[in-house]
């Protein structure tokens, strides 16, 4: 079993279920609210997966004084850019040209490596030393330098070395030219004119259409049909089909509620019988069910010529191509993938709409204009096991906790802000879940000094040493653990209730003692029987159920200088008046796996 590194996750308040549960239970709103206040947070609940984040993922809104997670912030796109050529793409181009790079940036369809343009000079003549004209007219191909794929494998070469995207749009696999929709229309017009001259119908009615043209043909055909049929009489059409299954009766019923406009349109359109599309000019495309070509290709080239699902999903949608009818099964059907554009996004607070993160608009810079990360507002918590010489568990292995044997951990809180903060911790005495472990926070209330200049500590080193010793001795604790105050400066190495273990410039370490539960299922059943035993879950150990996770409610209080910039402050108030700030959130502390005995 892999050893577990201790971790701390913080719950974002956006996923607080209390308003939801209240709305679900309208009969007893007050009791539901009270329950939520009292209830301890369960890190194993399925919902918790979506609300717990490491501190590094969280942002902080300075105006709401609240933590914001990636799920609750509103994102806005600042720029689109190509990750390969780092060119910024204006958003107007995105609408017209799609979300892929339209320059010469392509990914290999085989291995998604970047493709580069290379020229293959056809039989270079050693007598001609430098012929720039010839170099220009030479054929270019795309090659992948990783898997050695080249565009010659799908029969595509380019006449120019730049503007590959535009050139590629005009070539089918195999080198045949491809017409755009506009060119198609013009070509068809010419053909029609020619056939009229010849006085015979066009023999090419069964041509292969690409998806875009087919759609355009179908659309124009059915629009024509609608126009023809609606020009007919407006008689007692709706009486014509009174069958229950007909869509008209449904629309009639709907029209009673919606006001009739829908009914009128529909009924009028149903007057004349509509014809279906009959040939490719009208958008009819017969599916090519003859797969003998594919089978013979498979027989001759084998498995190697087929493409994998990954390669298929990487392919961009090919609207400009003929309907493939499942033909994208061979590597010869693959096309180079234009790079997907990426974005830089700014993030807004969902409540007050203030921007809490905004990157620099320039593509090449990685700096941010605004970035309010939670790590610079709320204390970081680091965990390490405490091995006391002669203490409770000196020989416990670091990777697995011994069941039913007390283990001590050191939690270090580091204060990032420039004010002294007061921290209050609360944990349930037993962790939630099937295997409740006992948890005791030895010092649940303490103060952390401000994050002052780093040099302060170094310059006043003698003082701080003394200071630290003094503070460790008689940290005044006004929490519930008053009995810790009595036996003052005794043994410094022994963790005591109500005492801070160690403190520094802007950090404080406290001790948490846990008694991990035994993971034996028979024991679980017996304890449950003793407790009354209603509906115990004696199933086998589930995934990660052996991880000891402590839900911990952290409440941070600090004072700030009088809120001059605060909207609500009265103008007559004293500027020097301090304002109390408070932030409270649930966090989950994962200590390690409990060993199975």
């Amino acid at each position, binding site marked *: 079993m892999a050893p577990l590194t201790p971790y701390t996750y913080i719950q974002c308040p956006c996923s607080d279920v209390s308003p939801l549960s209240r709305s679900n239970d309208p009969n007893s709103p007050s009791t539901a609210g009270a329950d939520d206040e009292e209830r301890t947070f369960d890190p194993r609940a399925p919902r918790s997966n979506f609300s717990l984040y490491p501190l590094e993922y969280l942002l902080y809104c300075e105006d709401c004084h609240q933590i914001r997670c990636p799920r609750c912030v509103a994102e806005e796109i600042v720029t689109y850019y190509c990750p390969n050529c780092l060119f910024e793409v204006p958003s107007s181009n995105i609408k017209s040209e799609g979300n892929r790079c339209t320059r010469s940036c392509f990914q290999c369809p*085989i291995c998604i490596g970047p493709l580069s343009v290379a020229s293959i000079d056809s039989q270079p003549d050693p007598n001609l030393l430098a012929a720039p004209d010839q170099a220009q007219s030479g054929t270019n191909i795309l090659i992948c330098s990783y*898997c050695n794929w080249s565009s010659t494998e799908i029969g595509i070469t380019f006449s120019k070395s730049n503007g590959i995207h535009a050139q590629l749009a005009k070539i089918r696999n195999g080198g045949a030219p491809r017409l755009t929709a506009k060119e198609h229309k013009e070509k068809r017009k010419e053909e029609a004119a020619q056939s009229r001259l010849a006085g015979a119908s066009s023999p090419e009615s069964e041509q292969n259409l690409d998806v875009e043209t087919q759609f355009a043909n179908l659309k124009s055909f059915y629009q024509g049909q609608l126009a023809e049929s609606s020009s007919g009489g407006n008689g007692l059409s709706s009486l014509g089909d009174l069958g229950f299954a007909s869509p008209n009766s449904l629309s009639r019923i709907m029209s009673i509620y919606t006001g009739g406009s829908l009914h009128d349109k529909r009924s009028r359109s149903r007057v004349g019988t509509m014809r279906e599309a009959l040939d490719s000019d009208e958008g009819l495309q017969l599916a090519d069910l003859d797969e003998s070509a594919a089978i013979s290709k498979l027989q001759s080239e084998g498995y190697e010529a087929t493409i994998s699902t990954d390669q298929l999903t990487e392919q961009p949608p090919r609207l400009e191509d003929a309907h493939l009818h499942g033909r994208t099964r061979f590597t010869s059907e693959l096309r180079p993938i234009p790079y997907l554009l990426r974005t830089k996004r700014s993030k807004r607070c969902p409540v007050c709409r203030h921007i809490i993160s905004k990157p620099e608009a320039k593509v090449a810079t990685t700096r941010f204009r605004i970035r309010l990360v939670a790590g610079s507002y709320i204390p970081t918590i680091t965990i390490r096991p405490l091995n006391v010489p002669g203490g409770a568990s000196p020989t416990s292995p670091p990777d697995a906790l011994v069941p039913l044997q007390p283990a001590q951990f050191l939690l270090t809180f580091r204060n990032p802000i420039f004010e002294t903060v007061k921290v209050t911790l609360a944990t349930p005495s037993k962790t939630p879940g099937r295997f409740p472990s006992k948890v005791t926070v030895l010092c649940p209330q303490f103060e952390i000094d401000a994050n002052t200049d780093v040099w302060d500590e170094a310059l006043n080193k003698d003082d701080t040493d003394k200071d630290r010793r003094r503070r460790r001795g008689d940290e005044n604790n006004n929490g519930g653990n008053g009995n810790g105050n009595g036996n003052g400066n005794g043994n410094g190495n022994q963790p005591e209730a109500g005492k801070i273990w160690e403190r520094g410039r802007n950090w404080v370490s406290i001790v948490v003692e846990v008694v991990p539960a035994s993971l034996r299922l028979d024991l679980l059943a017996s304890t449950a029987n003793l407790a009354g035993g209603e509906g115990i879950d004696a199933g086998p150990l589930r995934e990660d159920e052996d991880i000891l996770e402590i839900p911990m409610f952290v409440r941070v209080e600090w004072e700030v200088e009088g809120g001059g910039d605060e909207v609500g402050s009265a103008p007559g108030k004293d500027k020097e008046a301090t304002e109390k700030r408070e932030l409270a959130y649930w966090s989950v502390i994962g200590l390690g796996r409990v060993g199975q005995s």
Partner: protein
Amino acid sequence: MSKRHSIVPPISQAGPKPPVQLSSSLTIADSAVLTGSHPIAIHGETVIHPRARIESLCGRVTIGRRCIVHERATLGAVGVSGRVTENAVTLGDYVTIEVGAAIQAGETVIGDGTTVGVQAKVGAGAVVGKHCTLTPHTEIAAGEVIPDYTVIYSNGMRRTDRRGVTELRNKAQARQIEVLRRMIPSNPAKFA
């Protein structure tokens, strides 16, 4: 020669000195390592980079013409079995063994024009065909037979190279060797 010193500890020429058969047009760096008891034959215009390691403990090592063996590459590494065969490693012509690649001994053959990528491993007894490309970190199991023009990429995926540029590649290799000959001071006398 400049007096720059590497921070890497000096090469220890441990082990027996093998009988060698070196071409006169060879470029072999002073700090390359040739060890073993069986003969090592290196043919014309091949370049052996500094700190490349060629071991003939398990049999004869033959390197063809115009090959490049890069730094810290190991040819003829003693495998798990450690059995002695007549030919430990045979490289064809125009073979490139990239940095840190390892080729185990035991009738292992690398065909003409093949590139063995950075940190790739070729097991004992594997026969790699001609003009293959093994991308970095590829591992070829012992005894495997790789057909000609195979590209092995991304954790063992395989495809056939249909570029048909073997001539161009050979030309490029020759040009690269031209440059390397000027860059790497050769000292074949040390190994003779």
